[in-house]
């Protein structure tokens, strides 16, 4: 028997608790049965599912989160990390063990639901129960992940747990409602007609597997098992592929474009997410840098934080998009008249800028409240400053802060900085080579024109203008 599981069972079960749970549940079901019509079994099934959600979903998630946090608080975590128990045994021992009492109650509920389920819905019953079990496993594994990440950041205070619980609650309720609304429909995914029920089941199984896998990988790192971040990269790719499926109407050539766009968006979103949740700071980056300098590539990968991996993937997606796509697919007709090519670059530059803002604050000697400070500055840059500019009718100035990318003249200003930077580098290089100075002019109209030319000459979809996009044409 897994010793971690055994220890948890020692802690979770006593004769008293073993008897108490079925008694309490039986009384609740009795209430539900008495409170509804004599011949109806709906009351029992509904209350059974609700109780399951409460027990396995919320209480289970809380217990799973406590599995690590309590070790950390009780200062027994180092002892566990030093043990000979493998990361997988530790992960499933904790997941199953800490939630075992919650599952004990939840399984009683499910058994009751299965027995009391109205016969006419028999097919749905098995699907709903399977979905519910998978969703509960998923949420519990996410809670374990959250607590492992919080521990690593040194956050074990109760409010952090509270925040994570609220987040989990949102995920759980969000996913379950979206599942329920999709259950009865059929829809297109990667051009295939899929039945809502089956899709929901498949989704919950796959995401539960990913969540458990994520918890396992984090546990590997905690136990000092050497890992490279391929698991995270695989998850980013999978999520992009999964989400892109909803946008692809029929399997045609546009599917690839949509996948690339989804890839860029997902990797950008996950970069932000990991930047704010992962342990980030000067030391993390310096560790990677020291390994790179010593050309220990494997170790550099081992030390690499997930946000950096997602950022690298975003860069790859950006490059692929710029190389292969010049216009958005037919779906998005409104944007047909603008050139698509620079947009991914713009998105990437914004991402890098925001990551840089975060790093500036986290590189401080004694970094404090990095996340909130960064959020404040991002709000300033994305909401407040553009808002002020807009209200003051200073559109051009506002565009410098946040380019409304789908308006052509202003779009140019977003790329202006990039042009200016490259022109300056070119001018410096020229000075170094020849000793002559350069006059660098950067009129916005020229930049805009360079973008137009791409638009005019790129012509048919999918072909790239031979003129390099980022070559400034105004260097004298």
């Amino acid at each position, binding site marked *: 028997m897994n*010793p971690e599981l*055994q*220890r948890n069972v020692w802690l979770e079960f006593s004769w008293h608790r073993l008897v108490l749970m079925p008694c309490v549940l039986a009384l609740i079901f009795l209430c539900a049965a008495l409170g509804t019509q004599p011949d109806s079994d709906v009351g029992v099934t509904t209350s059974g599912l609700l109780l399951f959600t409460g027990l396995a979903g919320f209480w289970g998630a809380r217990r799973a989160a406590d599995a690590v946090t309590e070790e950390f608080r*009780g200062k027994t975590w*180092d002892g566990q990390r030093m043990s*000979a128990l493998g990361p997988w045994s530790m992960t499933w021992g904790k997941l199953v063990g800490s939630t075992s009492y919650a599952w004990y109650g939840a399984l009683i509920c499910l058994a009751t639901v299965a027995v009391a389920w109205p016969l006419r819905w028999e097919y749905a019953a098995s699907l709903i129960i399977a979905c519910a079990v998978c969703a509960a496993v998923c949420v519990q594994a996410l809670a374990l992940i959250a607590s492992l990440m919080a521990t690593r950041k040194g956050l074990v205070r109760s409010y952090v747990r509270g925040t994570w619980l609220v987040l989990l609650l949102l995920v759980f309720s969000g996913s379950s409602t979206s599942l329920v609304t999709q259950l009865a429909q059929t829809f297109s995914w990667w051009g295939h007609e899929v039945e809502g029920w089956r899709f929901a089941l498949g989704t919950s199984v796959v995401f539960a597997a990913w969540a458990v896998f994520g918890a396992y990988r984090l546990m590997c790192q905690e*136990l000092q*098992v050497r890992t490279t971040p391929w698991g995270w990269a695989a998850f980013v790719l999978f999520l992009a592929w999964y989400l892109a499926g909803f946008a692809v109407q029929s399997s045609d050539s546009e599917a690839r474009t949509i996948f690339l766009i989804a890839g860029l968006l997902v990797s950008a979103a996950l970069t932000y997410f990991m930047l704010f949740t992962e342990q980030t*700071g000067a*030391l993390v980056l310096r560790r990677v840098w020291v390994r790179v300098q010593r050309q220990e590539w494997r170790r550099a990968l081992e030390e690499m934080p997930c946000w950096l991996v997602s950022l690298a993937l975003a860069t790859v997606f950006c490059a692929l998009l710029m190389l292969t796509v010049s216009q958005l697919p037919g779906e998005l007709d409104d944007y047909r008249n603008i050139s698509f090519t620079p947009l991914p670059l713009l998105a990437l530059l914004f991402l890098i800028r925001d990551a840089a803002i975060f790093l500036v604050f986290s590189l401080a000697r004694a970094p404090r409240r990095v996340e909130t400070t960064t959020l404040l500055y991002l709000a300033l840059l994305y909401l407040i400053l553009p808002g002020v500019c807009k209200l003051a009718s200073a559109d051009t100035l506002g565009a410098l802060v946040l380019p409304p990318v789908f308006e052509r003249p202003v779009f140019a200003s977003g790329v202006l900085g990039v042009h200016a930077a490259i022109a300056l580098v070119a001018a410096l290089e020229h000075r170094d080579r020849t000793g002559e100075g350069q006059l660098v002019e950067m009129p916005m109209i020229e930049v805009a024109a360079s973008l137009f030319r791409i638009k005019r000459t790129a012509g048919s979809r999918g072909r790239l203008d031979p003129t390099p996009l980022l070559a400034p044409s105004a260097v004298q």
Partner: protein
Amino acid sequence: MTEGNAIEVEGLRFDYPGVRALDNVSFTVACGSVTALVGPNGAGKTTLLRCIAALERPMLGAIRVAGIDVLEEPRACHRRVGFLADSYGLYDALTVRQCLVYAALVHGMDAAAVPQTVEQTAERLEITDKLGTPAGELSRGQRQRVAIGQALMHAPEVLILDEPASGLDPEARHVLARLFTRLQSEGMTLLVSSHILAELDEYSTHMLVLRSGQVIENRPLGGTTLAGSRVRVELATPVVGWHERVRECTGVRLLEADASAGVLLVAGNTLAQASVLKHLIDAGLPVAGFHAERENLHDSYLRTVREGTQP
């Protein structure tokens, strides 16, 4: 790896935000020794111990413990090392027996052998009568022993203890010292950090001094040092200027002296000491005591730290 070294640390560097906790730390710990890791607060002792136990990854450097490259195979290191953190915890709701059984099982011990090992360990730590008690009800000294018992369950080759004696009463400390001596006699290598030097003195064979993240001293304790043996001389009656006769011997340095006693540093082995004694008696001095002195760890530490502060 040189034969006979249980721990080898080379060029270790560890950074915290804005602070270099360990800077180019290199030292070796001989097999079967008990090394006292001492140093002021914030010297990096805990960080160093955690790095050796493969709980933290250093920025740079190499560590070998019991022949294992810790940075290459941290998990293998966990199996060979027992570690007790300065602030350790026990599962308060479990009984002492359950705690020890759990520790044995997570260290991969064969389930059939567990009950016997638990009994043996409990006996060794003198907690047999507490096996049925929940860990939360134990006294501090007993908790300490249970925690050490957990760290000893897998018979590690190297035992690392961070401040094991803090907060213990004299009797509990004595029990601890006895245990350490016994473990050492069984061939285990111990690395113990502590503030309480007098207590380390009872069982340490080596002293490793860390200050501001750097090793400033690593040497064996006891009568024999690199420079020679400390010998205490006592005279039956005070003789003014008796120590002038000492200077006539070769290889002897006077460390301190007054009219009736003094401390000499004698180079070489015990034969050298015998010849010094003979010289003193031949000179007609009323020598009442002449014995190699085991240097007090406290004095030794203070001297080292003081020397370290001088430029």
